[in-house]
C-alpha cells in the first residue's frame, strides 16, 4: 500500500488543490503549478479532483509500487517506462505489484503530474496535503521527496472505464516561449501610462532564480507613476508585481500571502497552466484580454475537465 522512492528526481513534491482558507493567517496556498494537468491526472485514474498527486519537475523520479495501482502521467512530456516498457501519457495504466516506474528524458514542458489511484495519503496540515517547500509545511514531511521515502497510498477506487484518446484537456505545452493572457490591475494606476503597452511589447525571459514561489522576469522595464513601494497587501495567484527595478515578478503557487510592490496585471486563470509549464530560461509574452474572454476560456477548460471526470 505504498510507493518507495528509489530516486527522487530534481524537485518532486506531493500536491493537492492547495491550502486555501488560511491566507488571512499568512499561510501560503501552494498546490500544483499546472492545475489543469494536475486535475486531469486525477480524473483519469478516477480520484477526487483535489486528491494529492506528485508534481515532478524537470528531472523525474524512479519509484517502486508495492501493490497493484492505476496511474496516469500528465503535463510535461517525459519518456516514462514501467519495468523498461514505454508508457503512454495522459492514459490510465495499471501497474502490478513490485513495478518500477521511471521518468526518463524530458521532451517538452517543465512539470509532470503522477496521479495514483487512491491518492498519496500523507497527513493533511490545515486541511491540505500540498507541500509548501520554503516553510516546510504539508506533503511528505514538509519537503521534496528523497531516496528511501515510503509514500502511503489511499484506498483504491472503483472506476467505470478508462478515459483515453482525443478530446482530453491536455495543456498545450509551450516550447521555450509561451503567450499568456492578462487582465489589467489591480493597481494599474500606480504605473506610468505606457507601462501596460511596455508589458506587451516584447517577450520576457524567466530568470534563473525563479521557482514555485514566482518567476523573476527580464525584459521591458515597467515604470511606476510614483513610489515603487506600497502598503503591503494581498498577492493573488498569477499577479505581476513590480519592484523598483521595473522587472516584474509573476507570482506562482508557493507565493507569500502579502507583498509590498504595485501589481500591474494578473494572468487569467485559464492560462496559469501554460505558465506553470515554463522554467528558467524560457520566454513568456503577455497579452491583455477582456474579462469575457478570460471567463470563456475558463468555461471551455472546465467543460473539458468535467467530461473526463464524469466518466
Amino acid at each position: 500500500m505504498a510507493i518507495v522512492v528509489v530516486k527522487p528526481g530534481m524537485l518532486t513534491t506531493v500536491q493537492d488543490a492547495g491550502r486555501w482558507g488560511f491566507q488571512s493567517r499568512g499561510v501560503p496556498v501552494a498546490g500544483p503549478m499546472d492545475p489543469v494537468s494536475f486535475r486531469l491526472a486525477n480524473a483519469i485514474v478516477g480520484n477526487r479532483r483535489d486528491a494529492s498527486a506528485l508534481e515532478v519537475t524537470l528531472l523525474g523520479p524512479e519509484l517502486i509500487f508495492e501493490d497493484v495501482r492505476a496511474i496516469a502521467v500528465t503535463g510535461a512530456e517525459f519518456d516514462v517506462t514501467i519495468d523498461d516498457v514505454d508508457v503512454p501519457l495522459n492514459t490510465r495504466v495499471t501497474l502490478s505489484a513490485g513495478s518500477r516506474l521511471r521518468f526518463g528524458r524530458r521532451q517538452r514542458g517543465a512539470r509532470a503530474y503522477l496521479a495514483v489511484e487512491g491518492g498519496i495519503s500523507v497527513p493533511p496540515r490545515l486541511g491540505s496535503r500540498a507541500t509548501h517547500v520554503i516553510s516546510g509545511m504539508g506533503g511528505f514531511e514538509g519537503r521534496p521527496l528523497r531516496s528511501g521515502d515510503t509514500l502511503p497510498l489511499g484506498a483504491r477506487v472503483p472506476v467505470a472505464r478508462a478515459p483515453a484518446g482525443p478530446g482530453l484537456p491536455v495543456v498545450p505545452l509551450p516550447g521555450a516561449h509561451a503567450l499568456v493572457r492578462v487582465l489589467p490591475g489591480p493597481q494599474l494606476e500606480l504605473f506610468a501610462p505606457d507601462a501596460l503597452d511596455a508589458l506587451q511589447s516584447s517577450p520576457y525571459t524567466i530568470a534563473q532564480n525563479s521557482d514555485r514561489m514566482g518567476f523573476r522576469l527580464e525584459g521591458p522595464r515597467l515604470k511606476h507613476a510614483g513610489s515603487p513601494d506600497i502598503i503591503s497587501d494581498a498577492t493573488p495567484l498569477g499577479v505581476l508585481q513590480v519592484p523598483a527595478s521595473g522587472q516584474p515578478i509573476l507570482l506562482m503557487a508557493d507565493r507569500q500571502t502579502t507583498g509590498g510592490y504595485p501589481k500591474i496585471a494578473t494572468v487569467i486563470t485559464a492560462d496559469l497552466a501554460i505558465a506553470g509549464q515554463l522554467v528558467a530560461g524560457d520566454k513568456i509574452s503577455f497579452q491583455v484580454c477582456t474579462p469575457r474572454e478570460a471567463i470563456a476560456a475558463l468555461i471551455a477548460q472546465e467543460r473539458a475537465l468535467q467530461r473526463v471526470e464524469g466518466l
Partner: protein
Amino acid sequence: MSETFRIVPAGDSAVVVEFEARIDPVVNARAIALADAVQNANLAGVRDVVPTYRSVAIYFDPLRTDYNGLLKRLQVDARQTPDSAADVREPIRIPVCYGGDFGPDLDDVATFAGGTVDDVIRLHVGATYRVFMVGFVAGFAYMGTVAERIAMPRHGTPRVRVPVGSVGIAGVQTGVYPAETPGGWRLIGRTPLKPFDADRNEPFLMRAGDSVQFFPINRTEYDGWRSS
C-alpha cells in the same frame, strides 16, 4: 458609514476592496470588519478572504460565484464598516526575554534611542499593539505602533536565519518570528511562545485586529516556559 473605498478586480478570480492608503487603526478596523462580514456570509464559491493593512482581498472560483451579487454585497458591507477602531479585544500577553543572545540588536536600538537597554524594554512593553495584518509566513503578525524613539529601521541586509520566537522592530512595526526564516528586523528579544504551531488546537496565536502586550521575563523564566 464611509464611502472612502474602491473595488478593483485582480484577474478573474479575485477582487480587492481598498480603503484609504494609510496605516491607521481606523482604516484597518474597516478592512477587518469587512473581511469578517464576507467570511461570515459563507458565500458560494468564495475560497479565501484576506484582510491587510488597508484592504481586503476576496478569492473566489468564478464558475461557482455570483460575481455581481458579490460586488453588490461588498458595496453595501464596505459602506457599513465602522468609523472607529473601538472593537478592542482583550490583549494577548506575550512574555519576552530581552537582550543577550536572544536580542542581538538590543544595544543598537538603545544607541538609536539615545538611551539605555532598560529604556528600550520599558518603551517596548509600555504600549498596547494592534495586529494590523498577518502575512509573510504562517502566523507572522505585523503589529504597531512602536514608540518613535525606538522605531529603528530594519537592517539593510537581512539576516539569513532568524530563530523562531525572535521579537523584532522594523520602524514603527514590531513582530514575532513564527518560523526560522531570513529577516531584516532589529532583534531585541525572544518569546518562548510559538506564534504558529500546526499541531496545536488553535494553531495561530494572533489574528488581524487583536491587541497585544509584551512583558519582560528573565532567562530562567524563559526556560521554565519552554519546558512547560
